[in-house]
């Protein structure tokens, strides 16, 4: 019998490795079991929480109370919605009274406005005067209003005519 053959030693070493693996597997399985049991118990406890049903009951009670105030809610929402529209209309309304005021202010006493029209933001004015200098002053003032972008955007002299008695100046301007 050869002395190099030692089956027992080899067999013993194999069992020892198996035991170590078994120990690891057993510990792992125990750990997994603990995790699963702990998670299950925790989830059970969490799901047992009655907060949501209580909140739902509170919500339903509040909705019932709110439905009693439905008319007030509708009125407030109606008023708010109208006010938005009203403010928008008021902001966008034409400011013709201010335009007329400015034109009246800049018209000298010896000049009369024969005709004035505002159509689609185009202002047309016909002035008449015995003084050509006064009409020239108006033209200068209006030109400076265009330059300073005050009320007027553009200015055109449509007509300038006259006889020995009266001069007539027709201007058209685009309002800002």
């Amino acid at each position, binding site marked *: 019998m050869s002395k190099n053959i030692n089956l027992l030693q080899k067999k013993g070493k194999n069992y020892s490795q*198996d035991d170590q*693996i*078994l120990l690891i*597997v*057993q510990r*792992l*399985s*125990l750990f*997994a*079991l603990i*995790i*699963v049991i702990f*998670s*299950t118990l925790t*989830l059970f406890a*969490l*799901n047992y929480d009655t907060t*949501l049903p209580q*909140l739902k009951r*509170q*919500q339903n009670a*509040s*909705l019932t*109370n*709110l439905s009693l*105030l*439905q*008319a*007030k*809610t*509708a*009125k*407030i*929402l*109606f*008023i*708010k*919605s*109208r*006010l938005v*529209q*009203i*403010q*928008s*209309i008021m902001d966008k*309304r*034409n400011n*013709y*009274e201010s335009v*007329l*005021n400015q*034109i*009246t202010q800049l018209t000298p006493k010896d000049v009369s406005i*024969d*005709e*004035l*029209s*505002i*159509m*689609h933001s185009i202002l047309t004015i016909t002035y008449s005067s015995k003084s050509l200098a006064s009409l020239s002053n108006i033209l200068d003032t209006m030109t400076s209003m265009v330059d300073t972008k005050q009320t007027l955007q553009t200015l055109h002299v449509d007509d300038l005519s006259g006889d020995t008695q009266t001069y007539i100046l027709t201007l058209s301007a685009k309002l800002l």
Partner: protein
Amino acid sequence: MSKSIGLSEDTIWVDYYRYRPFILPVLVLLVCTFLFLYVIIPQMRSWLSLEGQITDTRAKVQTLTQDITSLSSVNDTNLDSQMRIVAKALPVSKDLISMLGSLDNAGVSSGVSISDYSVQSMAGSAVGTNQVIQLSLSVTGNLASVEKFITALKNEIPLADVVDMRTTQTSSALTITFFYKPLDKITFNESDKIQTLSASEINLINKLASYDINKTDSGDLPSLNSGLN
């Protein structure tokens, strides 16, 4: 010499006895893994979503409670009065009587006489989200009187705007639009917070009320019941 290929019955039994202690822990591991993946993780997800629901519902309840508190503090009579004013400023339908009334008031306060009223179309036309009715009329008076009339008309309700004008030394022809807006469906979501009227909104209502010479404290309010969700 014959070699046996594969596992003999003896080998299987030897392996079985050798690995028998592994069976239970491995089985436990597999079952635990299965439970963790297919039961515990979905349950945790559903719990997290439940937490989200709780947070949402709590916020809704808080909003509803605040709404109820703020609505309860609103005076119903004041609200009706405010509603009447805004409904008069921007009517829900064509209100020709009020339109002519405001023109008349503006004429009286500016000292001009108005004539030749004509409604260009009763069908109404849309300007933005509003509907308008156009009226043309003649005003007797000089440029200063027309300016006063336009200013006075701006301080009247229902809201109006002068769109076109042609004036001579003694009379003027004006085209005026009156605004109205049919009743929209009022939508209200329970999660939306109801804001009571702000100071600027109350100021605007007071401004409109100051335009209301006739001080309308009575009259029908627009019916809103059908419009609320």
